[in-house]
């Protein structure tokens, strides 16, 4: 079980502000990581569909409430894709709705983090999750 270093991250979130802050925080925590973003499920699905084998994402952060195709719809699709079925998916949302979270975890999501209210907290969250996934893989 060698420690796999996470290099490529896909963030699926329709909120552009959040995209920006996530990128900032990741830059602070893991400057060596590259983040690709998708603004909704359709975009993310297209991206994943065309991702070459060599540049497959190491982790996916997935929001729930999104236009066109939301997280709940996207997740099973990802899990149905042979190349991406083992990629850890982190539910990343402001939602309090337990039912939704339960659904996502049942559909194969790795874990769930709430969108933080402070930058510091966000940095901590990202760092914790990445370390956890790396050590578990």
């Amino acid at each position, binding site marked *: 079980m060698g420690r796999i270093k996470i290099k490529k991250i896909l963030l699926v979130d329709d909120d552009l*502000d959040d995209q920006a802050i996530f990128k900032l925080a990741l830059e602070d925590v893991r400057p060596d990581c590259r983040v690709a973003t998708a603004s909704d499920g359709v975009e993310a699905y297209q991206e994943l569909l065309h991702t070459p084998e060599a540049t497959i994402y190491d982790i996916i952060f997935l929001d729930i409430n999104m236009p066109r195709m939301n997280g709940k719809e996207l997740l099973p699709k990802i899990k149905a894709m042979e190349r991406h079925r083992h990629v850890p998916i982190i539910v990343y949302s402001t939602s309090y709705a337990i039912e939704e979270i339960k659904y996502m975890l049942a559909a194969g999501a790795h874990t769930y983090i709430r969108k933080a209210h*402070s930058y510091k907290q966000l940095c901590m969250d990202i760092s914790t999750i990445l370390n956890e996934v790396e050590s578990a893989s």
Partner: protein
Amino acid sequence: MLKEFLNILLENTGVDFCDYKPTTLQRRIIRRMHLLDIASENDYLNYLLKHEQEQHLLYKEMLIHVTTFFRDETSFDYLCSEVIPAILKSKNPNDIVRIWVCGCATGEEAYSIAICFHEHLQQVGDLTRIKIFASDLSEAVIAKARKGVYPATALAKLSEARKNVYFFQQPDGYHIRPFIREMCTFAVHNVLQNPPFANIDLLSCRNVLIYMQPVLQKKVLATFSYSLRENGYLFLGKSETSGLAGKFETVNKGANIYTNRERNTKLFSIHSATKTPPADMSHTERPISQERKDFQRAADEMLLAKYIPAGVVVNDSYDIVDFRGNTGFYIEPSPGIASWNVLKMIRKGLYYDLQEALGKAKAERVSVRREGIALEHEGALQRINLEVQPLSGTKEKYYLVLFQQVPQAPADSLVTDDGINNTRDLRIHQLEQELMHSREQLRALSEEQEATSEEFQSANEELKTLNEELQTSQEELISINEEVTQRNKELNSLNKELVTARNFASSINNTINDSLLILDKHLRVQGANRAFYETFHINETDAQDRVVYELGNKQWNIPELRQLLEQTLPEKKEVSDFLLKHKFETLGYRALLLNVRQMHLEAAAEPLLLVVIQDITESHELQQAVHESAFRLQFAFDTAGLGTWEVSLPDRTLSSSDRFKQTLGLPTDAPLTYEGLLAMLVEEDRAEFQEVLSLAPEQQRFSKEFRVLRADGSQRWLALSGMARLGQQGTPISVLGVSADITERKRSEQKLRSSEQHFRLLADSAPVMIAMSGENGEFSFYNKSWLNFTGRGEGYTAADWVQDIHPDDRSKYESLFQSSLKTQARFNAEFRLRHKGRYRWLSCIAVPRFNVKEGFDGYTMACTDVHDQKLMSEALERKVEERTEALRDMNDELLDKNRELEQFAYVTSHDLQEPLRKILMFSSVLLRKNEPERSTHDAEYLTRIEQAASRMIHLIQDLLNYSSLKEHTRDFLPTDLNKIVQHVLIDFDLLIQEKEALLTIGSLPTVDAVPLQMTQLFYNLISNALKFSRLGVRPEIRIAATELTPDEAEAQGLKRDSGYSKIEVSDNGIGFDKSYSDRIFEIFQRLHAKDQYQGNGIGLALCRKIVQSHRGALIPHSEEGAGTTFAIILPLKQDA
């Protein structure tokens, strides 16, 4: 002939009577023949062969069972007083005493002996020591003996004492008492065939042997000798002494008691003796099988057979027990009864020699030898040497008898020189000797005969004298006889006179109607006349000699009669006209008049009593009835308060009873005349009274009410009723009648009338409709309001008014009325009743009436017109319903709105949060980036933006939580509070590190709760504890749980019984004043300035709401500057 009978019995019963005395047997057979009326023995034999029953009877006849208790008293006395103590004395206290009663018949003998032993109880000690075996041939008698029940006659000879001690009386006879019965064992046993009882101390065999022939007797006695112990006692009957010689010694000749001199040790020889010649003891022990003989023994035998002289071994009574060699020449069975006695079997020529030799050998215990006994055999003369040798070393006495034939000398050598034939000489010598013996015997016999004849002569003399005496007596008797005849004649004539007199007397007695009874001194009936027997249904024969009280099944046992006869009479000697009233069982009630006189008859020493009984029942009853009816009449008058009066018609004189005077208010002794009575009547009534009296003779009877004026001025009502008494020719004599004071009745009648009027007035004037029914439910009264309402007149019946009820309500009312009538219960009814062609609603109450005596008296029903009210209330109800409907609709609308609002609030707050979060984020990003060109002011402003935004986020979140905390969201799950707290603490990691807070968390329970709400609760409390820490003081937070005691629960107004947990969250923070304890839970209530401590004042309100929704309590405890403790009280289990 006898043999054939015996053979039949042997076949049938297995008992051989051959050896019983033929004469006895013959007698029995003849007796049976006699009973059956059979003349010839042949006929009887045939009869016997055909009838098995008869065989049995004959068998029973043969075994005579005659016995009594203590038979032969003298013998028994001796047995009881001497023998039994002697036996007991010879024994150790625990030794068993064994007694055999052989031929016990029906057991009397055995029980007698048992009684004897019991009479020596002190010496016996334990009764179980005594074992009495009682045996008999016959099963039937043994069965009787076992029962131990005897008729009174069997006990006649017993002393009263013995009877009482050893027997108890029952209807079927006298029963032997169990303790005697238990001493005895009864068995069917044939002494001649079955092995005997052994080790017997006392053997009783009475009157058994006499039925046996000597051979059998001997055999039995030998058996007895075997059975008895040495010196054991033998108890025989009278005249049973033969054959005892040698074995038994007399103890008491009179009592026929003997002791066993020497015990017969071998039963074997006794029993087999009659069947097979027994072998010598020594011989029988020798093995017979040829193979095992050795040659020496074979040689011995050969020698023994060839050279040892023939002989026999005999016992002390000369019975042969063993034969040795060929004895056929010397011994042969003698004719007659079979016997093993050597003297009976010996060849005739040897008899005397053998007898003598045996006698000598026995007496002197020496061997005796007789030589050269001449014996003629088939014409030749033989010489025999005889030797009797007592056998030594044997237990019993045996004698060996040896015979030896002297070898015959050749004929020529027998002739001696002197020419005398030696053989012949010897024979002569022998004959001479025999002759001598014979002579001696003859002499002895003739001497005996002489003595006997002398005795006979003297007896003859005695008889002669006796005869003479008898003759004189006879003569005397003849003369006496003549005298007697003479007397007899005289008596006869006297008797005739007496009979005539008696007939005369009895015919008088029997024609008298009164009963006559003659009693003796002991009140026994000596006679009575026919009237007595007939009147009292007593049987004449039954009455004779009975005590008078016992007559007619003791019906005469009357206490008064006893008193009269036993006490009054002896004093007064006679009783006249004594009235005896008694209820006889069969005759019923009788009144009897008794006259008793003493009669002194010449013949009777004691005076007799003549009782004359006159049955006066009827006249007595009549008299009684008259008395009674008079009494009743008086009683009736008295209780009814009736006075009586009589006015004689011609002269109008008045006689009256005291009561009559009382009703007039007069003293009883005051004189009251007809005129006086008339004067007392109210004036208007006087003429009427006079008219009534004068009309009375024509009328049957009259009854009128009159008013009288008493002396005190009060007016009374008097009811007078009566009738005329007519004389024989129909002429009126007087008017007689009764009077009653009816003033009270009149008054109450008056009252009733006025109250009735009162009631009608009341009822009619009442606005309420009133109707009344009788107890049968039919209405009979309607007041005016009722009649007005219905518009009907009087004569309005039940059916009419019920027809007025609206058809829709009628059946309901009727069923209600009928069911209420059954239980006589009050009821309420509402129905529509026709009123001027239209129906109006009535509300009615029907109340049952009860009077004192008969109970239910009917219903009183009161109805009011509720038509308008009814319509009004219906309208009201309709309106209320409408309103309710409207309200319900409004409520539903509100609920919908509420739900929308909730949704709105949720969405809004969620959407509000987002921009705030962004503001927060970006400002913190800005702050992080330490731009050099940024002024300190800018930094401060950014911080303020951050803080404001942060506060707003929390505010929104808390509001969201508070509003979404609703009753219906309760979803209790078993929740581990340890996990909840740990989870919450993760959120505070940063803060805890910052403040260097010290947390102590104890073990927390698992409770039924909503997990998210628990998280919220602990989040808020821990957050507060961290938040309100004192400056410069390291925060210490302690969370610990304890179980709430029932008392504490009750103090908080919680259920006492359910289990609660108390979780305390305490800190060492700033605390607050106690007076704020309630305020802290109010929403948006803050104790501190915003800049001092963060917060929005919702947290604790939310906490309390959560705890309350979990049916618990949240209790703050704080002191300013000393820290705060929140006690969370939660039930461990939530009810479903």
